[in-house]
């Protein structure tokens, strides 16, 4: 059975249900419980649900130390950029300790951070910076694009014995979707084929999945059948599903809100170019944000970001119906 929930509530439901099932799950972060009536505080008490000062590095470090002792902390960071404040903990400490200790300790933490908002939140609150975490050994990265996956991936992230950065897209916050009741797990490292088609593979991340699906409808009206893939997690990355699709279609367009060189798209493109070259009948096309900080003014935001028209254009390029441009 399922019920309709907005994306953001699906995430909260996952955390709540896991905290009910497993008393080692903790939840902390700035402003996470602003009154005594907060549902998490009411349900689990102030030992397990802790409001922190603005101290990302200490918050995450404490989560790591508590994880060594057998707890499973979820840290609410709100914005991907705020996580950058704590990069020593996120990159040098959390993901490396299991390895450097020769397997003696585990770090089952979840770092929850929103990204990609735009909407005039400007240069330091809108970045799609998941690319920089993809290559960190020991770190996993979840990137749900639907409400159901938001719940399923959060559950999987909490249960994972490794540190997981859980990126939720701010523009999906109120997107409603059917969310399974009760226990629901979406494994990390499994992509989802959202639309089947034989003419071109479109891999689209997060909020851009919706744009890609709309672009696919527009293309279908022109007789072009796109297969749309949602990676769902970036580390581990399900390259097998993408390669299988490209083997069928021969053409790949990757849609990513990141800037080009920092993008997951660049990593996916490298994997397909290196492992699936013989399947390709056209160059791989990346539809990314322009290489600039997200500007404040609305027309500039729209200019810089991927959209349906740019996706359609890219597909037409790889199909040879339009010149392959910049």
């Amino acid at each position, binding site marked *: 059975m399922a019920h309709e929930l907005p994306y953001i509530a699906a995430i909260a439901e996952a955390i709540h249900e896991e905290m009910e099932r497993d008393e080692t799950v903790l939840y902390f972060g700035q402003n996470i419980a602003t009154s005594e009536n907060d549902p998490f505080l009411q349900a689990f008490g102030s030992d397990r649900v802790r409001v922190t000062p603005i101290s990302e590095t200490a918050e995450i470090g404490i989560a790591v*130390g*508590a994880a060594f002792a057998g707890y499973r902390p979820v840290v609410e960071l709100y914005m991907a950029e705020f996580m950058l404040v704590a990069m020593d903990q996120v990159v*040098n*400490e959390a993901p490396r300790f299991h*390895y*450097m*200790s*020769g397997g003696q300790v585990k*770090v*089952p933490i979840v770092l929850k951070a929103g990204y990609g908002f735009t909407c005039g939140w400007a240069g330091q609150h809108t970045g799609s910076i998941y690319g920089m975490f993809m290559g960190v050994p020991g770190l996993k990265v979840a990137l749900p694009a639907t409400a159901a996956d938001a719940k399923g991936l959060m559950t999987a992230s909490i249960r994972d014995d490794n540190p997981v950065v859980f990126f939720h897209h701010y523009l999906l916050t109120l997107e409603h979707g059917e969310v399974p009741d009760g226990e629901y797990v979406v494994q990390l490292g499994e992509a989802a084929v959202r639309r089947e088609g034989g003419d071109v593979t479109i891999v689209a991340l997060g909020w851009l999945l919706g744009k890609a699906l709309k672009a696919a409808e527009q293309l279908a009206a022109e007789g072009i059948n796109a297969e749309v893939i949602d990676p769902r997690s970036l580390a581990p990355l399900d390259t097998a599903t993408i390669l299988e699709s490209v083997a069928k279609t021969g053409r790949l367009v990757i849609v990513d809100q990141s800037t080009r060189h920092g993008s997951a798209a660049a990593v996916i493109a490298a994997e397909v170019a290196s492992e699936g070259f013989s399947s390709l009948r056209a160059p791989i096309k990346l539809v990314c944000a322009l290489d600039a900080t997200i500007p404040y003014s609305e027309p500039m935001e729209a200019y810089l970001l991927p959209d349906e028209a740019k996706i359609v254009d890219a597909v037409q390029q790889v199909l040879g119906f339009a010149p392959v441009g910049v």
Partner: protein
Amino acid sequence: MWRIRAFEERVGELTRADEVYGLVHLSIGQEGVAAGVCGQLRADDAVYSNHRAHGHVIAKGAPIERVLAELMGRENGLCRGLGGSMHLVDAEHGFMGATGVVGGNVPLALGSALASRLLGSDAVAVVFFGDGAVQGGIFVESVNLAALWRLPAILVCENNGFAEFTPRSAHTNVERVGDVVAPWGLARETVDGNDVVAVHEAFGRFLAGARRGDGPMLLECLTHRLRGHYEGDPARYREALAAEEWQERDPILRLQRRGAVEGWFDGRVPGRLEHEARTEVEEAVRLARESPFPPPSLVSELVYAGL
């Protein structure tokens, strides 16, 4: 102290002979702090240290041959050769981690302290750091949270007057590390870190308080790092301590002199302790040399826990 001294001196030799690989930071001269603190802790008290961790891990109970095997990159090392000098972990004895980025260990210790509280245990967390760590944001941020949440954490600062290659005066206007944490009201004391009896006594009081739930505390131990920041550091940035002056300050010699004066250390004991320590270390060298290197394929096996 004798065991740590023998170990560190031997590691210095092995580093120069390229049998101990890479970047190594010795704690010769600072043994009084490790011994005075760790000797009083239980296995379930979590200890964290920094890049200069050999003394702490040994004092916390790690078998010397496994520490040495780790420094020599062997399969039998504490971390199977994956961590090395700056990332020693001996979870069985409660040495939860040495870290190589200054200050990174402080919030980790608070996490262990929090876990202890949540479990209803009176176990404490202890974190060793140098005077150089105190100016970092993470230190102050951690002190704030430790005080706010009243965590059972004891912060032990080995103030040897140098942060890597520059003296404390080049880093801050605040001379005493204890003064840095004053606004948060932590119980704090400054002791002579080279007087192992004084360290033992002060830390013992702090430990009892921390177990009682008195909240976080800071023990500043004034000490001296006899060697350079790392093995190989030419240390041109400071004047070498004259041999006579070091004789006055050496924690081992000071304990011996005190023991002799007070009558509880008969003349043959220091020699015997030193001999036993060196024998133990030589045996560790032999065992480490015989231990195989881990299979290279190990690099891919422990990237993730679980599947």
